Every structure is written in structure tokens, then in C-alpha cells.
């Protein structure tokens, strides 16, 4: 049974088509890797699945709910770790968790217990009262994962969750996530640029390039169909060796300026 269904999804920004007639589905309880070069349309697809962007055309279903028609049900059913940070830096780890719990209507009695459980799980319980701005990149990422799980979602979206993390933290993180996937049956949908990560963890893969899906299947199928011996080679064969001229978006430019300021 599939928990995510995407049919003929298209997204245009002006006359630029970021996602072109994409269709795929994700098995319930699976770990799905959505791979593609910079600017391929991965984040745009995730934003449409998570109700942040309205598709130009096409259909999306999560856990049987139509994303366009029932955004409220859909929002209850997933958790997300965005590609860019989305924590409130001026608040503590605990406060970030608490706001999330309230936004997702987690009952007060349950909320405290769950926050404790999850913060212990990502090893941040002893830092619960520290402001997030004092955290390292890895700690922030772990907090975002804990937060994404707080309302017990059926699907967890992770957009480049391991970007900028050291191998220790990355291993740790995937260990948590596989554990959750096995014990709780949470479906994991992730993107990454580390092919060995996808090869090791994912049981289903789709590769997108220039807005279109160019291949999908499990690791073995992808390797066989391309006649290669690793996912990385298969990926390069499918998407070519050219570097993508990804334009720096306004947001990125802005973020850089801010960093320049705050570094002093």
C-alpha cells in the first residue's frame, strides 16, 4: 500500500517549469530517497507535498488525503525537517518543542512526557533550557528531527537532513531514523547529495533531473539498469556530469548578508 501518491505533478514559476509532470508513489513504512542534482526540483516537490506551495497542476495524496482539498488532515499526518533551518533561535530547545506541540494540538499531559522522551532520544535533554542560537549545526538538526516527530506523524520528510554534519552525527542520525522506521513504522522520505547514504539506507529511490523523474526503483534495479556498480555511478550516468548553474536565490543572498552582519 502506498502512503504517498503523486500524479502528474507540475510546478511553474512564471514561465520556468521547476517540476514537470512528475508521478511516483511511496510504500507505507518504507524509506524513500528522492535524489537529484542541485536545482532538480526536489525541494519544490517537497514544498508541494507539505502544503507550502500550490501545484500548477497534478494530484497529491498523503495517507489517503488529498493535499489540495484537505490540507488540515495532511498537515497532521506528516512531520518535516526543511532544507533550511526553521527553529526560533531566540527561544530555548524546550520552548521550540512546546510551541510545536501546541500548534499540533498535542494534549498538555502527553506533551511534557513526549518532549522529554524525544529530547533524550536526540541527546539534547540536558541542553533543553539553552537558547537555540547557542547550538551547533548538528544540535539544531537533531532538535529539528525531534520536533518533527513530536506529533507522531505517519510520514517524516527530511530535505537534506545531513547537510553540513560530520560523519559521527550523520551516522547517529540515521541510526535514530532507521530505528524509528522499524519500531514505529514511520515512513521516511528524504533527499541527500551523499549517494552512499542513500545506497545504505533507502529501500526505494527516485532520481529527478530538470524537473522530471529519470529513474526509480531500488538500488539493485538502478545499478542493473544502468550497468554500474554503485549508486553514485548510476546517478552520474543518469544525470550527466555537467555542473548545474544553480542561481543563488534571494533567500540565500539574504542569509549570506545576515551572516556577514551577525559575524561582525
Amino acid at each position: 500500500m502506498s502512503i504517498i501518491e503523486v500524479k502528474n505533478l507540475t510546478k511553474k514559476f512564471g514561465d520556468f517549469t521547476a517540476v514537470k509532470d512528475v508521478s511516483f508513489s511511496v510504500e507505507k513504512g518504507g524509506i524513500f530517497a528522492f535524489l537529484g542534482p542541485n536545482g532538480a526540483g526536489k525541494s519544490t516537490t517537497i514544498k508541494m507535498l507539505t502544503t507550502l506551495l500550490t501545484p500548477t497542476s497534478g494530484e497529491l495524496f498523503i495517507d489517503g488525503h488529498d493535499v489540495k482539498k484537505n490540507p488540515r488532515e495532511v498537515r497532521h499526518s506528516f512531520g518535516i525537517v526543511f532544507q533550511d533551518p526553521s527553529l526560533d533561535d531566540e527561544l530555548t530547545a524546550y520552548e521550540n518543542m512546546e510551541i510545536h506541540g501546541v500548534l499540533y494540538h498535542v494534549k498538555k499531559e502527553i506533551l511534557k512526557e513526549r518532549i522529554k522522551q524525544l529530547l533524550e532520544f536526540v541527546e539534547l535533554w540536558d541542553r533543553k533550557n539553552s537558547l537555540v542560537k547557542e547550538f551547533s549545526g548538528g544540535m539544531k538538526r537533531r532538535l529539528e528531527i525531534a520536533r518533527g516527530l513530536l506529533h507522531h506523524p505517519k510520514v517524516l520528510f527530511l530535505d537534506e537532513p545531513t547537510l553540513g554534519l560530520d560523519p559521527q552525527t550523520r551516522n547517529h542520525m540515521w541510526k535514530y531514523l532507521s530505528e524509528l522506521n522499524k519500531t514505529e513504522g514511520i515512513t521516511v522520505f528524504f533527499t541527500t547529495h551523499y549517494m552512499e547514504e542513500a545506497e545504505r539506507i533507502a529501500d526505494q529511490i527516485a532520481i529527478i533531473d530538470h524537473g522530471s523523474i529519470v529513474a526509480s526503483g531500488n538500488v539493485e534495479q538502478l545499478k542493473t539498469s544502468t550497468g554500474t556498480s554503485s549508486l553514485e555511478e548510476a546517478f552520474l550516468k543518469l544525470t550527466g556530469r555537467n555542473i548545474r548553474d544553480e542561481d543563488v536565490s534571494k533567500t540565500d543572498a539574504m542569509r549570506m548578508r545576515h551572516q556577514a552582519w551577525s559575524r561582525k
Partner: protein
Amino acid sequence: MQIIYILWQRQLKRYLRSKSRVIGSLAQPLFFLLALGAGFGPVFSKAGQGNYIEFLVPGIISMTIIFTSIFAGMEIIWDKQFGFLKETLVAPVSRLNIMIGRTLGGATIATMQGTLVLFLSLIAGFRPVSWALVPVAILVMFLSSLLFTALGTAIASKLDDMQGFQMIMNFLVMPLFFLSGAIFPLDRATILGTIASFDPLSYTVDALRHILTNTHFFTLAWDVSILAILTALFLAIGSYFFSKVQI
């Protein structure tokens, strides 16, 4: 309800934790009050207009209100840039509730700030005509704060970078402040008097002046009606624009 409360509380926590913001937004009005008070005071009384500090204080409170509220409303730009807005927008809650929580938070901060400036002005020798009316003045401050926070939200929903923010501060907030009669008396015979009647802040200034010093240009009922109508209007526009925000 809980959602509105937690978002309101978030605004307040962020504000109270940023010491530089609290101090900065008190230092500016205080500076204006002392510099303008000392500079124009003598001219003002020579022209037969009475005590300038008494005239100026409601204007400076209004300045504090407009700056703080527009800034608070426009904090959405920060949240867009630094990501927290996404967290609220993917949550299973209505955007209207998010907008209300934020706006109430911003308005509360601006009202606190305005009230503080009122008390600080006591040091400069200011005395309200009636202490019993101070709570009424605070209500007017809150109404105006809602108005300008909603305006800030409406504008910020349409912008996505900080340059836009600077533009708004320079080309909207500054003129609104200077043209409102906050620092000079309005005169119906001049063009400035006419312009001021199109500036929402004029009604805040006038209402506060009426309540705190018993002098006025319009009538209090008129001031409050205009402020209430504009608040409703800007809340509607702000909610509409905010409901359309895409990331």
C-alpha cells in the same frame, strides 16, 4: 485560543530577551523628547503655544507606538528568512489564528513600550491632566498598536527582503511620523493640516493629546472612530495578504 496565546507569548519572550531592542526603542524616544524639548521649548512658548514638553510627550509616545508596531509586524520578514514562518505555516492551524497571535503580540509590545515612555516622560517634567485617564490613554495606545502592527504585517507579507524593510521605514514610517502633528501643532489653514488628516498617526497623537493634556485638533470620538475603522481595515488586509504568503 491556545495557539493565539503561544504565538503571542513567543513575540513577548523574543522581545524581552533582546535587551538591546528594549533599550534601543526606549532611548530613541527619550532622545527625541530631550533634544526637541530643549531645542524648541523656548521658541514654542515665545510663540504663545504654552509648554512644549506637554505638547511633545503624546507625540513621542505615538512615535514609539508606530515604530515598535510596524517593526513587530514586519518581523514576519525575519521569520521568512530565518525559517520559523515555515514551521507555523505547515502546522494544522488556520493562518488567521497565526496572524492574530502575532499581531496581538506585536501590539502588546508596542503598548508596553508606549506606556514606559509615558512614565519616563515624568522625569522630563510631564504631568497628565488626570491620572484616572491614563488607562484610557493606554487603551488608545493598544488600538493604535493593533492598527500599525496589522499594517506592518500586511506590508511584510508582500516583501521578502530587508531592503524592502529599510524602504518602508524611510518612505512610510518617517513621513507618517513627521506629518502627524507629533512634533508641531497642526493648522487647518495650511496644507500640512490637510495632509495630516490623511495620516492615521495624527489620530493617535490627537487622541493621546486630548486624554493626557486636554488639548485637541479633532474630537476624541472622531479620533477613536477613525482608529477603530482603520484597525479593522488593516487587520482584514493583513490577514488576507498573510493567508496568501507562499514560501
